[in-house]
């Protein structure tokens, strides 16, 4: 009965395929069709340009606070690309690229970011949950959805996203634990973008990786270069296949970086150096993937230019569209919608109060 080392059944690995310069580790190259490669590239491009445009709109006061995603496109798209429409994506709040992949319209994003809940619509042919602001809370919903899918004997799977900061919340722990115990078909994707507002990941947790937290739950965990869409793709393929085959959940840690501010209300200069940001700019997932596609001959310089214009036009149309829609939106009475399936009497009375107030043009009765 001496001190015996306990052998762990979980192995934690690191995976990278396309390096910072866009050079390929050919042995590990996943088999992705040319069509899919181009879809992914376009989606990254839309994610990037739309993010930039949202920032302009915010600075011009045409939308409210929003969280930029720049630099995290590969982590999102490499993962979400494995979902079928009937699967469930359960986002946090910084997954715009993934949401757009899942059929959310650019318009709806703008509308939502401008304070209209009408923007919080989910693409009718996709089974996703809306953006979730309370950090980590959505992880549990993913577990419930996965449980339900299995109960209904469907092969739907669930993918949920969260940040490095989220791993400190109790809900992360409870979600991972329930997910593991019930062996639900869920892929837990952590976008470790190194920061939670002003808190660096080293202060968020003392563990060397997020991936190794999987050991606490007895499930597989893997860390990937999250700016390398091939690595994310490969890890997510394994995890989604496992989930669909009834093999239970996986934790994927995507090492990436929040290149921009936390939200447009934040000023990252207060807490991190420009040098750090520069380093990570050098690891940009989009240019890296571009180089790979050019090298591979899937994309030509000409295609690239054409795509750029096309994407910018698409975004412009969406902005115009959204702004037009918002002009006719805004009946304050709509805020009583969807609170309950049916308005209870006292609340119906409150709605009438507001209706009367609006009708009298805020006239003050004397």
């Amino acid at each position, binding site marked *: 009965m001496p001190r015996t080392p306990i052998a762990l059944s979980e192995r934690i690995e690191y995976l990278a395929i396309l390096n910072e310069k866009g050079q390929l580790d050919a042995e590990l190259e996943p088999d992705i069709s040319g069509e899919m490669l181009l879809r992914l590239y376009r989606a990254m491009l839309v994610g990037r340009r739309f993010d930039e445009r949202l920032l302009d709109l915010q600075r011009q006061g045409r939308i409210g606070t929003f969280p930029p995603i720049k630099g995290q496109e590969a982590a999102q798209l490499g993962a979400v690309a494995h979902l079928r429409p009937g699967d469930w994506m359960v986002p946090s709040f910084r997954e715009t690229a993934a949401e757009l992949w899942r059929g959310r319209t650019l318009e709806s994003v703008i509308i939502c970011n401008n304070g209209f809940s009408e923007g919080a619509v989910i693409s009718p042919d996709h089974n996703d949950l809306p953006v979730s602001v309370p950090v980590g*809370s959505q992880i549990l919903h993913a577990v419930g959805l996965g449980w339900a899918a299995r109960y209904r004997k469907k092969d739907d799977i669930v993918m949920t996203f969260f940040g490095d900061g989220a791993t400190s919340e109790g*809900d992360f722990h409870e979600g991972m634990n329930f997910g593991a115990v019930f062996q639900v078909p869920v892929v837990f994707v952590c976008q470790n973008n190194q920061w939670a507002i002003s808190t660096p990941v080293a202060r968020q947790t003392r563990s060397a990786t997020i991936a190794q937290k999987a050991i606490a739950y007895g499930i597989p965990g893997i860390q990937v270069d999250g700016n390398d869409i091939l690595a994310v793709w490969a890890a997510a393929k394994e995890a989604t296949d496992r989930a669909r085959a009834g093999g239970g959940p996986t934790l994927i840690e995507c090492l990436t970086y929040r290149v921009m501010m936390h939200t447009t209300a934040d000023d990252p200069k207060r807490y991190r150096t420009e040098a750090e940001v520069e380093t990570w700019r050098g690891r940009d997932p989009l240019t890296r993937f571009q180089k790979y596609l050019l090298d591979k001959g899937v994309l030509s310089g000409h295609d690239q230019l054409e795509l750029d214009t096309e994407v910018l036009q698409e975004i412009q149309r969406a902005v115009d569209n959204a702004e037009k829609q918002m002009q006719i939106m805004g009946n304050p009475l709509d805020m009583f919608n969807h609170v309950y399936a049916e308005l209870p009497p006292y609340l119906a009375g409150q709605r009438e109060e507001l209706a009367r107030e609006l009708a009298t043009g805020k006239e003050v009765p004397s």
Partner: protein
Amino acid sequence: MTKMTMVQALNLALKQEMEKDDSVILLGEDVGRDGGVFRVTEGLMDQFGEQRVVDTPLAESAIVGMSIGMAAYGLKPVCEIQFSGFSYQNFHQIENHAARLRQRSQGRYPMSLVLRAPYGGGVRALEHHSESREAYWAHTPGLKMVIPSGPRNARALMVSAIRDPDPVIFYEAKALYRAFREEVPEEEETLPIGRPQLVREGKDLTMISYGAMLRPTLEAAEVLRERDGALAEVIDLLTISPLDEEILVKSVQKTGRAVIVHEAPRSFGPGAEIVARLMEKAFFFLQAPIERVAGFDIVIPLFAREKSYIPSVERIVAAAGRTLKN
């Protein structure tokens, strides 16, 4: 009809709804093998299997968060929080999501979810096992807050809660679980959520209560009749929120006097809202200040002193007496 305790009546409601609808799923700590610490779910795992009666690990936020996901998928989870004193561990899941997911998804996702929890004192329980804090949920838009007062209405309300398209917080008074039996019909019975019931007619005074406090309130009404010849009308709220004040208002318009009885702390408690509603709709009929008989604004004491904390028949009668004197 069989005479049943509230535990049995609730069990019947769950069993019958599960038989009718395979989207009804029970989950919680010890609800399966053990049948729940109060035995409300007894026998259901045997009948429906581990897929429909799910023993979970010990984590309230997860129980509720998982139920939210299940409800979004279209199931009808009925989750148990072992004691309402531990439902604060999942407060954020209820406030941030259960109460809002319908709204947050623009009506796309239903949220047919029941959270069952035993509440209230009177059973010599441990610390944190005797609180009565329904006002937290009642103040949360998007929720429904239901508290039955006996076996028969517990069964009917549970059936309605399970079928309700909105999240229902369902508090079960521990003190009532085995306190008495009532005839409960085998055939289906429902009660509308959001509708208080007149349970005793009167003309001199309106008494409003719910849950475990209904019986002492009724007893007090009887004392008033015998001793003073005063006829108290008694209303059982059944649904705390959304509160429908119509029947309360009508009664007070007739009697001009009201006493509200609950175990919850008095300040910022459910009674305050009832006073405010009666103020809004029956002010000109009031002949005396409305009295609140409630728990004190203190941490509910351990059980040796609980009796002095929880409203007694004497305390209710005394309040009614004051009201009637004006």
